[in-house]
């Protein structure tokens, strides 16, 4: 199997879906002639034509809102927000129109919204966010956050085939840094299934996105401790079974995410564990996250905010010793 980057995997997955079903089309800013700010749709307009690769005006509500209408009429739009941060400009259409449509009206909205998320490159407060927690509070949206090239491709296909609006978080840090073997052709990885990135018995690190590799690296050699790393992959639906199984096994949990602390996905996972696996706990559930600040620009400030390997190591060692 060829080894490709996370970015290439997303591009391949999208291309496969567009070849497979002509009702799939892309819309977003600079995705056509320019090939996308991150080149995900490079070559697409040449292959699929301007009809199916729409260079939209600078209007996020329009991108999301027209996608809702097109999806209602049987197309499968894949929206791109140039940066995840800009979803706030299309928030109304996403949470009020797209998310609630099936519940209220029984009308499915099969659309996907791709969000290039995350920091670590001095992008500053408006190009570095991880906004996934907002969508956990908007019933009707599914949310996925792949960490590997294979997952990126498979989850994108599944998201596009899903009859619901799916928010797809692609972490920019992983675009060219994450490489892996990915099967050619179409394949889907089901939404709602976590993946054990590394099995372990002494402590579980539960995480997703760019933090998965960071967790694996940070816990590779922790005084001989056997640390399990669970990659959630899917945030809505959440694989509660996999979470509780890991907790039952190790009884010590560190929940890790790059997004800010308060009411993040980590808060949800921690509460779930406290309620459903209380009698399996041999220590408090610990979160390692960014603090509640916007993501700063200057490298030392950004490093101080985004979780670093040492933060994960320290948290794990303290919990192991508890």
């Amino acid at each position, binding site marked *: 199997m060829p080894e490709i980057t996370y970015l290439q995997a997303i591009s391949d997955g999208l291309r496969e879906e567009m070849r497979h079903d002509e009702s799939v089309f892309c819309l977003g800013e600079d995705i056509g002639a320019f090939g996308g700010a991150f080149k995900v749709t490079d070559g697409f307009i040449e292959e699929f034509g301007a009809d199916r690769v729409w260079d939209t005006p600078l209007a996020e509500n329009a991108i999301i809102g027209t996608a809702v209408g097109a*999806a209602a009429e049987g197309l499968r739009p894949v929206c791109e927000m140039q940066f995840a941060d800009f979803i706030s400009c299309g928030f109304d259409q996403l949470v009020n129109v797209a998310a609630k449509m099936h519940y209220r009206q029984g009308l499915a909205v099969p659309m996907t919204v791709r969000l290039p998320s995350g920091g670590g490159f001095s992008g500053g407060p408006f190009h570095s966010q991880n906004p996934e927690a907002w969508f956990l509070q908007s019933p009707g949206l599914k949310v996925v956050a792949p960490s590997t090239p294979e997952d990126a491709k498979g989850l994108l296909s599944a998201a596009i085939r899903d009859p619901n609006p799916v928010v797809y978080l692609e972490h920019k840090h992983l675009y060219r840094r994450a490489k892996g073997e990915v099967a050619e052709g179409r394949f889907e990885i089901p939404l709602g299934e976590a993946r054990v990135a590394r099995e372990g018995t002494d402590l579980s690190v539960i995480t997703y996105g760019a933090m998965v590799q960071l967790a694996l690296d940070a816990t590779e050699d922790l005084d001989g401790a056997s640390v399990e790393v669970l990659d959630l992959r899917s945030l809505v639906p959440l694989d509660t079974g996999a979470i509780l199984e890991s907790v039952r096994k190790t009884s010590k949990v560190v929940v890790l995410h790059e997004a800010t602390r308060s009411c993040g996905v980590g808060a949800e996972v921690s509460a779930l564990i406290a309620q459903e696996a209380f009698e399996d706990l041999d220590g408090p559930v610990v979160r390692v996250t960014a603090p509640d600040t916007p993501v700063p620009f200057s490298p030392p400030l950004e490093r101080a905010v985004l979780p670093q390997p040492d933060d994960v190591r320290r948290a794990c060692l303290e919990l192991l010793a508890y």
Partner: protein
Amino acid sequence: MATTTARPAAIEDGGGASVDLTGDDRRALLRYMLLMRATEERALTLYRQGKVPGSFYDGRGQEAVSVGAAFTLGPRDRTCILHRDLGAHLIRGVKPGRVLAQMMGRAGGVTAGKDGNMHFADHELGCVGMVSMLPDMALVTCGLAIAFQMRREPRVAMTWFGEGSTANGQWHEAMNVAGIRKLPVVFILENNQFAYSTPNDHEFAVDPVKRAEVYGFPGVKVDGNDVEAVFFAAAQAVERARSGGGPTLIEAETMRMHGHGAHDDMSYVPKEMVEHWTARDPIDNYERKLREEGFDTDEIRESVKGELDAETEWALAQPMPEPHTALEGVFATEDPVLGDGNAPWSRWQREAANA
């Protein structure tokens, strides 16, 4: 680009079929307006009897705007209908009983209690239900039109919005996208003089119909209380869209004769204004006109009353929804199916007969 309220006797559309109204069509126009008013009056009574939870909104005085415009649509066209446009729902095929059940939050209502008042649409009849945030549906309508455009289909998407919502950024985004892509949409701007209590001069500095030009397509102003004027303006816009001519903004001037909702006594409306517009009631005037031309309008009224009585009885018999259904339907398990709507305009029967 901006035309007057003159009503052409007939318009030739791109397909060559003449756009006109038969006697049956005109009877139907009156009937649908009467049906809309009767349904809303009945609903208001039910509201005052404590059977309608939440708020109640109607489009009294604006019946011609929804009926006249929706009457132009073919079965495969699609709509996003707003809260003062009950006539459009009725034309597309939603029965009054389901509307009443919807307002009462019953299981037999269009959303089975999931959403209230006019936040409904029957997707099996090709309608997409509105949200409270206005004018979000204008962008959704553009999306429907994009699908027709991509598939090269001669189909049209129509929506309504009030003059107040033209102050919102999403209205601009919708107009802009529609103009850039020359989408097959018809935007019906219901200028009913007030957005809740806010009069027009607080919502815009320039008459919205003039803005269409700036977005690259025609803006047309019509007398929103003249159902045939609305019909012909809409028919022309629909045919323009269907033949690839792009969008039209139709500003229908009318007046909201009730408050924003049943909770609003509209005391902020000057008395003279109310009197002025009462005299221009769309139903009274069209009924008189048809009677003068020899139509038996009493028979239409009787029929509407009979229908409403039966529909009300049905609606009152519908049970409330089971509590467990509140947890159901958050996610879809199957792809959407937007069905076709009724198209009572005789033109469509003729086309179907000729096909």
